[in-house]
């Protein structure tokens, strides 16, 4: 059994389960006026699968997506209109950063840092988050040999 088998297998068998898990995050984010439809959940899971493949990573489960949704729910820079596209971007930045830091930073720590930068120095700019703050942070981590 090789990696493509894993990807295909998980994609085929776990998608219904994954979208249900994504939809469950509505219970927490509705207090911020953020809700996902089943179609949105499908789109997010598909975007996550693309990111995983693009960044040549493997994840069995969608813990990272759920943590990102929960962490960014209270952000003043996310609104319902661009909720799905912002989440898709954040998920891609997350996996991009995992590779850029050579997995030296834990999921929770990375998501917290992304959220702090996004809400403060980046003022909601995904471009600044990815290309300035996160890139600089990855360099610091690599230089420090952490």
């Amino acid at each position, binding site marked *: *059994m*090789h*990696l493509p088998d*894993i990807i295909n*297998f*998980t994609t085929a*068998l776990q998608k219904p389960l994954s979208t249900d898990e994504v939809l469950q995050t509505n219970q927490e984010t509705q207090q911020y006026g953020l809700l996902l439809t089943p179609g949105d959940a499908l789109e997010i899971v598909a975007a996550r699968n693309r990111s*995983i493949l693009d960044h*040549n*990573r*493997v*994840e*069995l*489960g969608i*813990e*990272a997506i759920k943590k990102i949704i929960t962490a960014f729910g209270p952000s003043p820079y996310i609104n319902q209109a661009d909720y799905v596209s912002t989440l898709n971007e954040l998920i891609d930045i997350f*996996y991009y950063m*995992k*590779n850029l830091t050579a*997995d030296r930073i*834990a*999921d*929770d*720590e990375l998501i917290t840092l992304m959220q702090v930068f996004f809400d403060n120095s980046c003022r909601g700019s995904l471009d600044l988050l990815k290309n300035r703050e996160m890139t600089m942070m990855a360099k610091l981590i690599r230089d420090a040999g952490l």
Partner: protein
Amino acid sequence: MAINIIRKKSELNRPLVQSGQYTLALLWDACRAGIIDEESVNCTHRDILNLLKDLIMKYTKGESSSVQAETAQRLLESILYAIDARTILFADPAEAVVIIIKHGVNAIYNQGFQLVTASTESSRALYLNLKAHKLGVGTHAYNLTIEGGLAGFFADYDPRFQAQDTVASIDYPLLFDDMSITGIFYIEQYLKKLAMENCFCQLFSTASAAKLLERYGQVYAIDYRETLLNLFEVLLTNAIFAVLAGSKPLELNISPTQFDLLRQRLIDSPLEDCSRLIKAALEALIAAIPRPPIGLSDYMRNFMPILIPGFWSGLQNDTLPNVMIVDLPPIRRTDIIFDRGVRLDDDGFRTLVEQVIDTNSPAGKAVLISASVHSIEDFIDLLEADCLFDDEFEVLYETLGDLELSILARIVFLEDLRLAGTDFFLPNTFIKSLDIEWQTAYIQFLQSLNLERLDSIQNLIHSF
């Protein structure tokens, strides 16, 4: 896991697949044979993926739910290796399938992991014992394998996350290695066999083994320490023929008189008689070994299909002194001392390769190399560094003297020298076909030399 459909049992053969694929192939074979249904196979796959998910979490210490694809592949292979370790032990493959379906693949994985862990511990103990009782006559490959390669392996090996890994610099060749095995089970069989070989070699004094090996080196015009020689094979061969020549068992020495008598005795004998006598000598030798380790006797007997044809060929072609080593006075050597020279450090070597690549003319490259390289190792590394092409080799060889060319010959024709010994004749090598570019160019260059120079190089080859 619920027991899925097991409709019928039928004969199931062991799948002939590489390690890590056995159980998966077995499940599909069982599915095709109607023993289990496809859902059972999918269910087992799902369980394996859950094992992978757990292992990823353990690997990242719970800090990351994803890993790079290469890491995931490695972890998956580690799981499958452990599963196979248990599954392969079932004498009846169908029974393995039934147990997997009935008890779930997790149970099989846990049992397999215990086998891997036990093998790791037993291999480590074997290794430490071997290290403490190294042979005093070890070759460089022998010493490096024990002190470097295996030490590095045990420092890095992790039975949970990389059970399938055999990443170790193991250069020392066994008489009978099994390269079809991977992971810790390969290391374990290697160490068990090396321990047996060591045990046999230690039956002889270091002085007598060293004397034999030095003499072996003289016969084949090599420094035995520098070669990938199996010490056990050399000692075993002489120990067998020493018995046949009339010595007591556990002697290595064969005197010229013994050799002549033995040769006269066997020269007109049919192969069957020779074979019977050699086997009887082996059995006498085995009987003389005090407390032989389990498996050593059979290991020695397995050598017969190699030794007997070699002996027979030597007898027919009058090259028996290349098969058994006779205790002759040392061959007089010409007083040439080879200075290996000072090696460049890694940065210096890289810089030189870049400079050679950047130099356009073949003559310029040759001058640069002559001025910068002062050791044979660097010279060979440079020849293999893809920085010389086509006629550039020839131009470089033209700058070398006969002595340097003879050193290259000893590298290129190592095996020919080993086989032909003092009968090695340089022009015989001109028909050789080699895959390595600098060696092919070297043979072509030799062909362009006159007989006088070839004669000079040949004399130098035999002189040190």
